[in-house]
């Protein structure tokens, strides 16, 4: 039962992807049906798996792709199903389902010639993305995990560059692919190191051997650090985080998928999965904690000054994923229980970040722009949407008693315990985490006051005054007719033509997922009343919890008081230089440009020049030589018989002289 469920979570979305591409074809309804049915059935399978795992315990080996014999090694491409994989699978499946349902409305219609929606390909890629993530979280072998890991990289490249008509989308897709690929190389090398040092790639055997101290320290440290590189790439942690804000070029539901369920969660999941390996080499965990602390604070500061709603949310993701990584990195528990806080934050983050992105998609859909400056007054015009957006922001800021509060404070409590156990890493993470709580409150409150409270800006005001109460009632999808002009493609570019006033209905397919995601955002803390073994390490210290909550509430209050003081945007209080610096994300892009991109491009130019002027020169010389030789030889063809005879005599003389000289 568990075996079948775990298999189906992978196979069903993959099948949906293939069928959606093969049979979706031009008939849009079919593509949408395949995608939604695929993700819905994957959700059912994941829930069944979770229930069964909770009831009957984990299954450590499920045959999947057989074994690969590589000379002396034998790699078993097997799956495993335990509480970790089943729990994350449910979160992935929920988010994927919400995204698929949402996308049927968000990417409806053929789009415009400049930004065609290409829905069938999109839906199939999302299904593929889901299947790849399911493969990563279920794989019992690092090689199989790497396959899913790379498939995710491919899917993210395709989805980020979905609107490939625009140069910025192509550049963002390329950047996402290359930057995460840098990290992926780490995973690949880690597999090689482990294969050489531990003679196996089975996760169970590696973790067992690491716990028993059977693997050499050098192998462990090298593989742990290399894996950490992959984690930093996929989870968008410093210094490989730069692709994530740029990846906002993709359609908004894709951002929800990447940020909430797949991709960025995969990195944290990998650390959690390989935690016994990391516990054997504390140095690697300390590196992870420091990376997390830097990403946490830096991304929160950068989020504070963003002028684009999606980029703000992207930086918040970097910051929140850093919380997860820190939660795993500061673990003091000797066993697997240590992953509790990090994974719990992963789950709650999946809920509220998907909610936030999908709600942001609705806002962008209404406003026709992703810029914060174009938004405002949502609370007056679309109250339900504004409340849902607010719930997401509250979860992000960690307002008690939302799920985000419990998970974040659990991480801080773990850091607190580590700090009091005498670990400097604990202090670093605790201080960074508390500082980030304040910053998170600030930028969440800033987003709320601009989007929901602030005055309706420009065209939005004109567009919305006529229809202040245009939200559809949830549940009457039949009466809700899809509107022709509500077919967003390239987020900002396409929405810009939403000028028709009084027609801003939001399709039920876009609102339902928001309500669905609001439930776990609000109530995930309930799980802690009777936690499963996976979350048994999660607890919230009273002092830490109160401190963290006070800090984030202070930040929220500070930012939300801004509209009363005149300007909804508290970021204008920052000095201009600081603000520009934060807007650029501390100019990490410029640093990378100078340190990596330019030298690589220069090297490429050198190689190209060498190829052209050295290797190609020989090739280019061949026709020139032949033509010159031909021209010389055709001069000899005079047609005069006497001239030919002269050549003959000349040849005879040359041969005679040669014979005499050489004899």
């Amino acid at each position, binding site marked *: 039962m568990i075996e079948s469920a775990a298999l189906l979570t992978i196979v069903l979305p993959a099948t949906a992807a293939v069928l959606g591409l093969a049979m979706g074809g031009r008939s849009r309804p079919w593509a949408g049906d395949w995608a939604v049915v695929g993700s819905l059935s994957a959700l059912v399978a994941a829930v069944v798996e979770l229930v069964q795992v909770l009831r009957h315990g984990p299954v450590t080996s499920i045959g999947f792709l057989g074994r690969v014999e590589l000379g002396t090694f034998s790699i078993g491409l097997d799956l495993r199903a335990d509480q970790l994989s089943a729990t994350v699978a449910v979160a992935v499946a929920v988010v994927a389902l919400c995204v698929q349902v949402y996308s049927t409305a968000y990417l409806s219609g053929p789009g415009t010639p400049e930004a065609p929606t290409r829905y069938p390909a999109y839906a199939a890629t999302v299904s593929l993305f889901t299947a790849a993530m399911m493969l990563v979280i279920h794989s019992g072998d690092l090689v199989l995990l790497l396959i899913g890991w790379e498939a995710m990289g491919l899917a993210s490249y395709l989805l980020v560059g979905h609107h490939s008509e625009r140069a910025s989308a192509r550049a963002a897709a390329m950047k996402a692919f290359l930057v995460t690929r840098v990290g992926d190389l780490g995973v690949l090398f880690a597999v090689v190191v482990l294969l050489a040092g531990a003679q196996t790639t089975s996760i169970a055997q590696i973790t067992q051997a690491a716990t028993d101290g059977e693997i050499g320290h050098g192998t462990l440290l090298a593989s742990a650090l290399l894996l950490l590189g992959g984690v930093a790439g996929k989870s968008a942690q410093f210094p490989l985080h730069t692709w994530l804000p740029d990846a906002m070029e993709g359609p908004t539901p894709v951002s929800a998928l990447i940020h909430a369920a797949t991709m960025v969660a995969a990195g944290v999941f990998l650390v959690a999965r390989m935690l016994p390996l990391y516990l054997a080499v504390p140095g690697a965990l300390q590196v992870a904690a420091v990376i997390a602390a830097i990403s946490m604070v830096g991304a929160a500061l950068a989020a504070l000054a963003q002028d684009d709603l999606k980029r703000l949310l992207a930086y918040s993701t970097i910051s929140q994923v850093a919380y997860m990584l820190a939660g795993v990195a500061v673990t003091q528990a000797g066993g697997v229980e240590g992953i509790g806080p990090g994974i719990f934050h992963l789950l709650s983050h999946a809920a509220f970040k998907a909610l936030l992105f999908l709600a942001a998609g609705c806002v962008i859909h209404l406003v026709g722009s992703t810029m914060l400056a174009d938004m405002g007054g949502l609370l007056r015009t679309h109250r339900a949407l504004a409340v849902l957006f607010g719930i997401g922001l509250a979860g992000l800021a960690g307002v008690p008693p939302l799920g985000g509060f419990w998970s974040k404070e659990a991480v801080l409590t773990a850091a607190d315990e580590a700090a009091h156990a005498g670990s400097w890493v604990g202090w670093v993470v605790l201080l960074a985490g508390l500082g980030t709580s304040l910053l998170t409150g600030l930028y969440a409150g800033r987003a709320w006051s601009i989007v929901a409270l602030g005055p309706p800006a420009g065209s939005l005001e004109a567009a919305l005054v006529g229809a202040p109460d245009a939200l559809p009632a949830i549940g009457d999808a039949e009466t809700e007719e899809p509107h022709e002009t509500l077919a967003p493609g390239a987020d900002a570019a396409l929405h810009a033509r939403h000028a028709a006033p009084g027609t801003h209905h939001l399709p039920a397919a876009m609102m339902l997922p928001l309500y669905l995601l609001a439930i776990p955002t609000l109530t995930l803390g309930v799980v802690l009343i009777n936690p499963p073994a996976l979350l048994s390490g999660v607890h919230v210290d009273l002092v830490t919890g109160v401190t963290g909550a006070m800090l984030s509430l202070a930040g929220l209050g500070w930012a939300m008081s801004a509209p009363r003081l005149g300007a909804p945007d508290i970021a204008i209080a920052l000095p201009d230089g600081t603000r520009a610096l934060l807007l650029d994300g501390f100019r990490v892009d410029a640093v990378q440009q100078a340190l990596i991109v330019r030298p690589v491009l220069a090297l490429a130019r050198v190689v190209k020049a060498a190829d052209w002027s050295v290797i190609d020169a020989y090739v280019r010389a061949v026709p020139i030589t032949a033509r010159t030789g031909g021209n010389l030889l055709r001069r000899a063809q*005079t*047609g*005069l*018989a006497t001239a030919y005879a002269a050549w003959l005599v000349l040849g005879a003389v040359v041969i005679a002289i040669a014979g005499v000289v050489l004899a």
Partner: protein
Amino acid sequence: MIHLIGPAVLASALAGIGVYGLLARRNAVLVLIGAELLLNAANVLLVTASALPAGGLAAIPDPGEAPGEITDPLLSGQVMAIFVITIAAAEIGVALAIVLLLFRARQTADLTAVEELGEASPTYTENPTGAAEPAGAAQPAGAAQPAGGSS
């Protein structure tokens, strides 16, 4: 045994006259005679060389000494000369036939008047027969065939 200098000088003279005739004469028959002279220079050398004793020039005995045995009973030099005469006969037959045809066609045996095979010739063409055909006449017919089939 006569001295070697005689046949050698004779061969050189024949070869020199032959080369001169080959290169300098314009009349095709005289050019052929030059070629014949060259061949006969070779014949004289071959016959002379076949009279040498085994060991070649170095083995020639001083005057007064008994001449050595001619070691090659097959007289390969003389046989080669017979070959050359035979081939020369065949060659001159073919060549004279060509000259005859040339004269019939052009009413001249002057070699400088026939250079159609050379690029420098005013009447030279890369495609001796193609110029008469209407260029591209077959092309539209071939192109129309698949177009008609698909419609």
